């Protein structure tokens, strides 16, 4: 059954063109991130050419203000962007699951308190606070992840809570209670399996969200200056006036396109995951 289930999920994803495209994009980016040292022609931190070179045979996308190869920077930047996106999404989903499950299963005052907290997080103006926080605790790889996940667990928590509320009324959950199964086991064996598919699709959404936020923060100069992500590249491009010269074609456009493509990849995967959750499709066993 477990195998069958995953096979069925795979069937749904692969029968959906968008989903397949999304997953292919993600796989490509993952490969780029993993194989960056092999793919990149130069060390991204080394000054390998004259500053502000136009694209040529040696430097396919030219060089930046201090003579580093932009293509290599981009390839290595994939690692940072992807890692930050996935880690931040993971943390916020785990947090969201925790809050959602506890809130949904226990109900009552705990639920009221946690949901008001969620409301609070949801209504806070997102970007200003994020900028404030990032500026306050200082730019670093982990701080960025922390800031993003602290502010994006709320909406997954909501979604997961409502799923838990439905699962809680299932006969088998009540049966487990009457058997005397401990709450821990009920949550792990009966509630969690029902939550995982939703958590998965929420995770994909959160990841694309996190990547965008990371890019925005880095673009504003709040990113980690030592691990260059696509956003950081854009920041330097902006700071060195690339937006105003011809250089935007090889310095600004490529990272922008990469960000967009990655986010689209996540979004398409998310759509097809949602299709898996569609009860109409689930019925056909």
């Amino acid at each position, binding site marked *: 059954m477990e195998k069958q289930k995953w096979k069925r999920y795979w069937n749904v994803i692969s029968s959906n063109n968008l989903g397949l495209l999304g997953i292919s994009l993600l796989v490509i980016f993952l490969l780029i991130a993993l194989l960056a040292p092999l793919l990149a022609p130069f060390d991204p931190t080394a000054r390998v050419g004259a500053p502000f070179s136009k694209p040529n045979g040696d430097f396919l996308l030219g060089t930046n203000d201090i003579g580093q190869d932009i293509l290599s920077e981009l390839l290595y930047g994939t690692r940072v962007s992807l890692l930050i996106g996935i880690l931040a999404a993971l943390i916020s989903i785990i947090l969201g699951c925790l809050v959602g499950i506890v809130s949904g299963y226990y109900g009552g005052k705990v639920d009221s308190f946690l949901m008001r907290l969620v409301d609070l997080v949801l209504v806070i103006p997102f970007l200003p606070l994020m900028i404030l926080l990032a500026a306050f605790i200082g730019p670093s790889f982990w701080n960025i992840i922390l800031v993003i996940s602290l502010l994006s667990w709320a909406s997954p928590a909501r979604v997961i809570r409502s799923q838990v509320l439905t699962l809680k009324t299932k006969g088998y959950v009540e049966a487990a209670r009457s*058997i005397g199964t401990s709450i821990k086991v009920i949550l792990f064996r009966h509630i969690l399996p029902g939550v995982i598919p939703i958590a998965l699709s929420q995770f994909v959404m959160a990841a694309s969200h996190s990547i965008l936020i990371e890019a925005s923060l880095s673009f504003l100069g709040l990113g980690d200056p030592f691990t260059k992500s696509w956003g950081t590249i854009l920041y330097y491009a902006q700071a060195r006036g690339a937006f105003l010269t011809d250089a935007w074609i090889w310095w600004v456009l490529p990272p922008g396109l990469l960000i967009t493509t990655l986010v689209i990849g996540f979004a398409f995967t998310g759509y097809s995951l949602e299709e898996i959750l569609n009860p109409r499709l689930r019925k056909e066993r």
Partner: protein
Amino acid sequence: MDNSVLLKVNQLKKTFIKKSGTVFNRKKTEVYAVNNVNFEIKKGEILGIIGESGCGKTTTARMVMRLMEESSGEILFEGNNLCTIKNAETNRLRKNMQMIFQDPYDTLNPGMRIVDILMEPLNAHEKNLPSNEKLKRVIEAIESIELKPAEDYLYRYPHQLSGGQRQRIAIARAVILKPSFIAADEPTSMLDVSVRAGILNLLLDLRKKMGLTMLFITHDLSTASYMCDRIAVMYQGRIVEIGPTKKIIQSPSHPYTIALVSVVKDLNYFIENREKLILDGEVDSTRKDTGCTFVTRCPHQEKVCHSKAPEIEALGNGHAVACHCHSNWLEKTS
């Protein structure tokens, strides 16, 4: 407490608060889902609770099984008051009290195999049993519910079984710990007639073999009369009549029970004597604590019925009824 009594329920109440009015003028009314219910079940006995949907029979069972908190009252099981003991202690006692639910399609987790479903009670209460011993118990349990060969069913999923087979697995899950008490909440109401009889006979059989005591909840009087030693009739949260099955069916004493018995026994009788047994009134859904709840439909009502709720009153031979004036009109009609 009397040693032969396994379960005793005393003055059990469950109220829900119904809010109405605006924020500034909030009215709270108490609605009684279960009101002053008393009964006891002797060891090895099957007590049936019958009543229409919403009369509080399932709520009572859920309170007994500690799936719901009571508003007041006490539930004594094997001498322990379930309403006051700690949760951990309740969980230990659950080994001896299990429940069978109404909907066989909902009560088994669709993502778990039969073997995992049946392991669940063992994992909760017999953690230290070696796993091959546990598997042996599971196979025994499947055999006891007459699904053979048991090995065939171990690795199936619930959706591969029919409704009757699922309900049997649910029964296996309830008896695998060899409990002394089982609460069965309409275990056959979702099943077809041809399968229903098998489940009823299985339960009777298990009772004989394992010495089970049962609380059997149903809305069907003929099922209750087939299964139960004693029957309690519930109406709008109260027990209106309780007694040995034979007594309830042969000489019902509450107007509600009389109507119920005559309807089920002989529909023709009901049709031809329509005037006699008119129960046209609306069901009183407010369920206030004053007056008899049946008063809106009762053909024999008197003044006192509107002001005071009738206490349950013994008629002898374990037969009791909650009606102010049953002696008056019973004489008149007989």
